[in-house]
């Protein structure tokens, strides 16, 4: 996709684990986020989606090895010095993370933490940063922002804290926002409010959002496009409408079937049988093969990524047959 604000190409991340072994947490992911677009990245916990977010932010655990390209406005972030990366973080790329209760420093006032995000990147006076922070707190919906500026985080509810985090993240009009499970720790009613706030603010400013989540419900509410990740690889991506209406990859289908909403309160949720492969020694072929209902001899070889006529992509042998037949 051209004009993407964030373009990830063939990204691979290896993380050292005790015993001198490596986990290939992200393995050849290619993904793009356009200006003002919200792209969902879905998968079970441990599939590498948060590691991918960390790789984009340049905040991986020490000793991790990264290869591939991460382009921000067509500039490669890989190979930046620590200081160059620091200047970009919080300015061009921002992060909203999972648990607002633990993302704020408990000993600083919420206002100071928003103002800090500004002063990290803009050479403005304390007073100007403070005024801007009050304004931002108002924009994200903190009632009486001037009075609450000096309050420490523990005097706010979880939803209000997440609003503060969003205010700090959007303080410098970032080109890209990584939102890593931004509503997982919140009540369901608050979740929707926060998601819509995120959507409104980013669409207005043209910020591209990579929304990392395990919850397809969240994706359905706010995303434009979605990528499904399994064992370090993207197995399918497409528009939200197409993917929900016609999931192509067996894993996507299984994931959709296991969403609570799909089954109301009737019976047990279907659980995907089997286990995620050990990523210190990943299988040679399709990584989902051991759990797949449609497994076939071909699956011992890694499947090709197949472009679908509607612009979606899927990595599964099943659809090679389909497209060949189509042709």
């Amino acid at each position, binding site marked *: 996709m051209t004009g993407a604000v964030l373009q990830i190409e063939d990204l691979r991340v290896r993380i050292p684990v005790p015993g001198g072994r490596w986990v290939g947490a992200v393995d050849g992911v290619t993904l793009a986020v356009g200006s003002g677009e919200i792209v969902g990245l879905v998968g079970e916990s441990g599939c590498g989606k948060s590691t991918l977010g960390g790789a984009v*932010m340049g*905040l991986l655990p020490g000793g991790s090895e990264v290869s591939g390209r991460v382009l921000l406005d067509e500039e490669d972030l890989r190979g930046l010095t620590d200081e160059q990366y*620091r*200047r*970009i*973080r*919080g*300015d061009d790329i*921002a*992060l909203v*993370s999972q*648990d607002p209760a*633990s*993302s*704020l*420093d*408990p*000993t*600083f006032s919420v206002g100071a933490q928003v103002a*800090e*995000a500004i002063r*990290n*990147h803009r050479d403005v006076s304390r007073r100007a940063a403070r005024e801007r922070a009050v304004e931002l707190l108002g924009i994200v919906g903190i009632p009486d922002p001037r009075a609450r500026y000096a309050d*420490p985080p*523990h*005097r706010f509810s979880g939803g209000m804290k997440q609003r503060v*985090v969003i205010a*700090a*993240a959007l303080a410098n009009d970032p080109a890209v926002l990584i939102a890593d499970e931004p509503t997982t720790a919140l009540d369901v009613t608050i979740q929707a409010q926060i998601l819509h706030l995120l959507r409104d603010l980013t669409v207005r400013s043209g910020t591209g959002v990579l929304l990392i989540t395990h919850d397809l419900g969240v994706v359905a509410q706010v995303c434009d496009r979605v990528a499904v990740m399994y064992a370090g690889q993207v197995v399918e991506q497409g528009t939200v409408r197409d993917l929900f209406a016609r999931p192509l990859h067996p894993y996507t289908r299984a994931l959709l079937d296991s969403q609570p909403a799909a089954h109301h309160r009737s019976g047990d949720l279907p659980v995907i049988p089997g286990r995620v492969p050990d990523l210190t020694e990943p299988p040679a072929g399709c990584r989902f093969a051991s759990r797949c209902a449609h497994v076939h001899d071909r699956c011992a070889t890694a499947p090709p990524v197949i472009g679908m006529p509607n612009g979606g992509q899927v990595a599964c042998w099943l659809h090679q047959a389909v497209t060949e037949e189509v042709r």
Partner: protein
Amino acid sequence: MSPRLRFVLRRLALTIPVLFVMSVFIFLIIRLVPGDPVRTMLGFRATPANVAQVRAQLHLDDPLWTQYRDWITGVLHGQFGQDFISKAPLGELLAQRIPVTLELTLLSMLLAVAVGVPLGVRAAVGGRWARRLTEGFVVFGISVPDFWLGIMLVLFFSGTMMWLPPSGFISFAEDPGGNLHYMILPVLTLAVAEAAYIVRTTRGSMLGVMGRPFIVYLRAKGTRERSIVYRHALRNAAAPIATVIGIQFGVLLGGAIVVETLFALPGVGRLIVTGINQRNYPVVQAGLLVVATFFILISLITDVVVGFIDPRVSDRGQS
């Protein structure tokens, strides 16, 4: 009333019963001496007439409650009674001795904090060498007894190098330079062990804080690493450090007794030790009272400081 003011007042109110218990305890010391304390004090001079006179002078024949009331009323008015041997009023004696002990302990703690906190931070965020060196320093500081360290310092700085006086004292008012000259070795002696504890606590507390999620989020905001470590992490790590500093002040006050004796500093600690050896109970009592009060006030100050560093502490219990 702001939560912070309320927190301070509540903590102040908690201090009063502690002071009361402590004063009763120290008041009772002379009354708990087995046999007749007056006979013990007088030793071979204990004729029945002398004993009766001293008993009357110390009001030992009054009911306990009256004795305590009179004693504590006097203390609150700065009258601590009389030195049993020199007959000097203890209030004046203490007025000379207290500044020496205060100077010794406060300077030691200042030095220990000034050295210990930065070292502890480096040990937590620095490389392998910073960690090893500080670990070595901690083991050394904790294992070596302070008075022996003091003797070794004297051996080196006074004996071999002849740089510093081995013992003695000049008051600050008389000669500030000379005063500091005499204070260097005693302060160093007391500060090493304190610094070791502060390094250990700072390191542990900082390691805990640097692993918390908000540190990652601060990096994500593009905060400079210096600011993350010294502004944010250190402030979060400060409450346990301040608590340990407060607790260590008690150890420091105990150490001061030894160090004052070692370096012949005319402080309250030395006063207590000589008092015990001479069975001079009024002096012992007054000295213990002063040091214990100082200790309790330091704990109070520590708790208030912790409450101001961490707003969660001062907010607790309100609503």
